[in-house]
């Protein structure tokens, strides 16, 4: 009962944190747009009209988007519109922000969840296979291989996958998100990029668990190795991995920006960057909001899961 109450407090804390961070990130996006050198109206007009930009289109953009108003007024207007659940309209396309940002978010989360899931799955297998052989040849080979893989820029991994599976074998689409299986190559690129770090976390977790109390206990009871591993070692092994979700989501969102460009996906990180560079404030703030919420959410979930997995860990180091 007390544990449940604790959990409730934790949950409320996380919801509050999420709200705070979301507003902070969105405000940062707003400030970033304002701080950039150059006249904002020119950037909007360029995003709108591309090569057909002219001095008149700049004036039109300035008037149409309320850019000629006070900065504080613009910011308060955004706060007002986001409180009513709408994030306003894009200054570039004129469309409502929410559906566009939400579609990008779906694209990103589809690729991210598949990629992270794949990386988790593989790193657990690798972690157990290698961790139980600590400091033997397989372990060292793994450590070296993962150091190499972590030294390859993710865009090169993506290009290699595209060349092999899309162009040479023609099994999968090379880009875009309107074909079945479009998410496979981007997800695999992400998974391969996350794999070195994640599998090292898993390997270290396994090594530590096996040196710990539970397996010894199992061995004393005369259990078989597979039984020891899965009954006793699996759960404690998960704790550090779940605790690693926070940095993981940050890596994923950043890394997906490169993957979006390579695979022509309209992800939420790419949308944030594009819209900040285009001075499309409502869009930038909408994308920033969603990214902020999802980072906090994953961190919160990871904290709660760590607690459920290992109640001994106190709530002291909760995020943020």
């Amino acid at each position, binding site marked *: 009962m007390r544990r449940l109450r604790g959990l409730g407090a934790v949950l409320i804390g996380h919801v509050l944190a999420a709200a705070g*961070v979301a507003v*902070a990130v969105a405000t940062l996006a707003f400030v*970033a747009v304002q*701080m*950039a*050198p150059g006249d904002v109206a020119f950037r909007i007009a360029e995003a709108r009209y591309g090569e057909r930009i002219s001095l008149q289109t700049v004036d039109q953009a300035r008037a149409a988007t309320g850019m000629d108003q006070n900065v504080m007024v613009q910011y308060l207007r955004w706060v007002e519109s986001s409180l009513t659940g709408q994030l306003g309209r894009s200054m570039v396309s004129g469309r409502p922000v929410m559906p566009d940002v939400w579609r990008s978010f779906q694209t990103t989360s589809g690729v991210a969840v598949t990629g992270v899931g794949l990386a988790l799955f593989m790193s657990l297998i690798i972690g157990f296979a290698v961790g139980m052989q*600590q*400091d033997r040849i397989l*372990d*060292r080979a793994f*450590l*070296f291989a993962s*150091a*190499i893989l*972590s*030294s*390859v*820029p*993710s*865009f*090169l991994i993506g*290009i290699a996958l595209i*060349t092999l599976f899309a162009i040479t074998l023609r099994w999968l689409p090379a880009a875009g998100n309107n074909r079945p299986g479009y998410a496979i190559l981007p997800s695999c690129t992400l998974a391969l*990029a*996350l794999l070195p*770090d994640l599998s*090292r*976390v898993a*390997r*270290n*977790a396994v*090594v*530590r668990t096996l*040196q710990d109390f539970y397996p010894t206990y199992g061995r004393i009871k005369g259990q078989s190795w597979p039984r020891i591993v899965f009954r006793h070692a699996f759960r404690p092994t998960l704790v*550090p991995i779940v*605790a*690693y979700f*926070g*940095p993981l989501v*940050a*890596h*994923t*969102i*950043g*890394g997906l*920006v*490169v993957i979006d*460009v390579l695979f022509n996906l309209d992800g939420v*990180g790419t949308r*944030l*960057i594009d819209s*900040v*560079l285009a001075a499309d404030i409502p869009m930038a703030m909408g994308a920033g909001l969603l*990214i902020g919420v999802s*980072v*906090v959410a994953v*961190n919160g979930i990871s904290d709660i899961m760590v607690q459920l997995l290992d109640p001994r860990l106190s709530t002291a180091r909760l*995020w*943020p």
Partner: protein
Amino acid sequence: MTQPMRASSPGRVRRWPPGFVSVFGFLPLAITLLVALFGPWLLTTNPNRQDLAAAYAPPSAAYVLGADDLGRSIAARLVAGARISLGIAVVGVLASLATGLLLGFISAFHGGWVRQVVMRLSDVILACPSLLFVILVSGLLGGGIGAILFGLWMSQWPGFARLTAAVASKELAADHVEASRLLGFRPGYIFRAHVMPAIMPYLTSLGALTVGANVLTISSVGFLGLGLRPPDAEWGSMIAGTMTYFRTSPHMVLAPAGAILICTLSATVIGEYYSARHQGIEEIA
């Protein structure tokens, strides 16, 4: 994917085979650093000299690693790029390290609200996608070395600050340090005499890993076209500029990609070597 998070991964020691670290860690990084430092005196060809007639030339006697799409020597550009890519990566780490060391020590020494503020701020920044941040900063500021450095520094000092604070508070709690504190030694002295020696190996490890991560980050920003201004020969922009010809003239992509790989790999190996030599580093960070 490019963050100094490896050092914080929980677990125990791992050992590279003897001699391994020298061959894959110190040697390549030392060579690259030497090339970066003395590159301008090594070059026989101007890395920006163009010969459009030699564009796309494969490796030959005149062009050891071939020529790029504007007929510039790829070998010369790699040498010039070492200075830029590695230079930014190392300077970025040094700046973050200095900031982190200062803020980390102050928060450990002072404790209380100072520590709370610094640590919470670090938490927030560490939870943010750092690559996104670097991309945004260099995009908004129109690229350039300063923009990338600022982005790297901003997203990386908290890692060093956390590490310093953790090690420093452990040291400050030790009896002999407590004693010198009570004897009225200044914070500066305590820092030099007690904290610095304890923290050096950890910082070396995190620093080396971060250098490797930075080389990757810089190349990603270059790949997105938001990096340095042309014609500066940065390895990532060299790839971005020639990726189009990957299948027709692979040498133009493979040469800078190889440089990035070797550089990051050696920094990673060194970082892990130090982290393995000093047990418990992961628990602290």
